[in-house]
């Protein structure tokens, strides 16, 4: 991998919660996934994991990882993304991650359309569109405190914060 170079030293801007040992282990996972050895993971390479085919939200997670928007996840983005699942990341970071799963255009608000699309990914064709729209409308009405028709990060965290997210979005290494 061209970007990895000397494994012992990593640039400080990695800004992750992992120690060297964990980064090395993640590096191995990354290399295993990087089938064409291009140094970044494409959607196809992610999808080569059979268990990920189960998961209806894979595309969203990949998009959230891909911070520079080039369609692929390079090693830095991978580490930063995985770092949000670490025990050491704080609640705020995890909430931001969950929020960005919904916020598809990254404008800081979850609109009606975005919520609909994400829900549609989760239910597939098992619910009719009007049923889905009903659910979405109801959710927004309940959560939208300032009446702008969208859910901001503050409104989101107000609801989700109680749910002990720091325990749910965690991977123990």
């Amino acid at each position, binding site marked *: 991998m061209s970007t990895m170079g000397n494994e012992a030293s990593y640039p400080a801007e990695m800004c992750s919660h992992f120690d060297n040992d964990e980064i090395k*282990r*993640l590096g*191995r*996972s990354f290399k*295993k*996934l990087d089938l064409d050895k291009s140094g970044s993971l494409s959607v196809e390479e*992610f*999808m*080569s*994991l*059979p*268990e*990920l*085919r*189960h*998961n*209806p*939200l*894979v595309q969203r*997670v990949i998009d959230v990882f891909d911070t520079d928007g080039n369609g692929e996840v390079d090693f830095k983005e991978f580490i930063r993304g*995985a770092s949000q*699942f670490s025990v050491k990341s704080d609640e705020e970071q995890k909430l931001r*991650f*969950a929020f960005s*799963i*919904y916020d598809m255009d990254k404008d800081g608000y979850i609109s009606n359309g975005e919520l609909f699309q*994400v*829900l549609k990914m*989760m*239910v*597939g*064709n*098992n*619910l009719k569109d009007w*049923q889905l729209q009903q*659910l979405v409308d*109801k*959710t927004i009405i*309940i*959560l939208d405190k300032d009446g702008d028709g969208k859910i901001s990060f503050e409104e*989101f965290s107000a*609801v*989700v914060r*109680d*749910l*002990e*997210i720091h325990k*749910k*979005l*965690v*991977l*123990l*290494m």
Partner: protein
Amino acid sequence: MFLLLPFDSLIVNLLGISLTVLFTLLLVFIIVPAIFGVSFGIRKLYMKTLLKIFAWATLRMERGAKEKNHQLYKPYTNGIIAKDPTSLEEEIKEIRRSGSSKALDNTPEFELSDIFYFCRKGMETIMDDEVTKRFSAEELESWNLLSRTNYNFQYISLRLTVLWGLGVLIRYCFLLPLRFKEFMSKHVHLMCYRICVRALTAIITYHDRENRPRNGGICVANHTSPIDVIILASDGYYAMVGQVHGGLMGVIQRAMVKACPHVWFERSEVKDRHLVAKRLTEHVQDKSKLPILIFPEGTCINNTSVMMFKKGSFEIGATVYPVAIKYDPQFGDAFWNSSKYGMVTYLLRMMTSWAIVCSVWYLPPMTREADEDAVQFANRVKSAIARQGGLVDLLWDGGLKREKVKDTFKEEQQKLYSKMIVGNHEDRSRS
């Protein structure tokens, strides 16, 4: 220059003598016992010595590494992360329950936090998934002086290479000319296999030999490498069924067909499949024919688990004799990653391993019961083999090594989740 001549001839003489001695020794210790099926117990001693050497070597390496302050490459056998095996329903219910108590009327059917489950599951898989792990060689905790299982040091044993050369020579010398002698072929085959086994320095322990497959039955085993065939065939007579291979394997296959009634086929040919099933049924019904040897996983797995059995062989309705084969990975990894390297490279690796130690368990015969179909029967046999060999029983299809998962799995998850949301809705409308 003239002075060198007598010296030369002396060396040549010495070489000649030592070679002769070597060959005689090999002859005595390998071929003769192979013919008579007698073992000298030397190999057991060899195994014990090897174990001691490995332990010593690992200690030395660790000490050396500590002195130099290096990070030794330590493989993790259990995966990187601690996985939490909960199902979709349990987890979502738990997330919702732990939320603050809202008035029951106002609870929406869908919660924003429902995505947590999917995100976490996805991340777990990305870091460390169950399936592709099975297709790469098992990683060992202690080093066994082979560079393949521990990326630190390279060592090739010369002696074993010589043995291999001899083995190949004899195999081809015996196989080819004796093609024409039907009567001799059975015994010759057995002898050849035994020779191969010695050449590989394979130490095999057979358990429950009274359950060995009989004529008119099908022998079913888990598959790690083509050596499985040698191991089983050296302890009994079988007719083989298998995928047609190119290269060296193909040559061997064609040679074998001349001597014995084996069945080779092309996996992707649909017509072929029916033909094979028909031929297998005929073969099985003829009670005088040899038992058929089949590896229903369809591909080589890395010997930590047993993957889904293809139902074809279980539909025929004959008695199935399951066999479990488990290799001891300390002495040499027998797993053949056919997508990574071909047959000759694999053989070379096998020949230059220290030894191949494995255990073979013959399980009591099973037949399909009246109320179960082929798939259930296959799963039952698979569980028995997995339990005996101490392997993990997996539902995943071995074909995943080459092909991708079908989309039906994702649709199932979606259906499950939808039921959860809509289910709540129905409850509410009732109250």
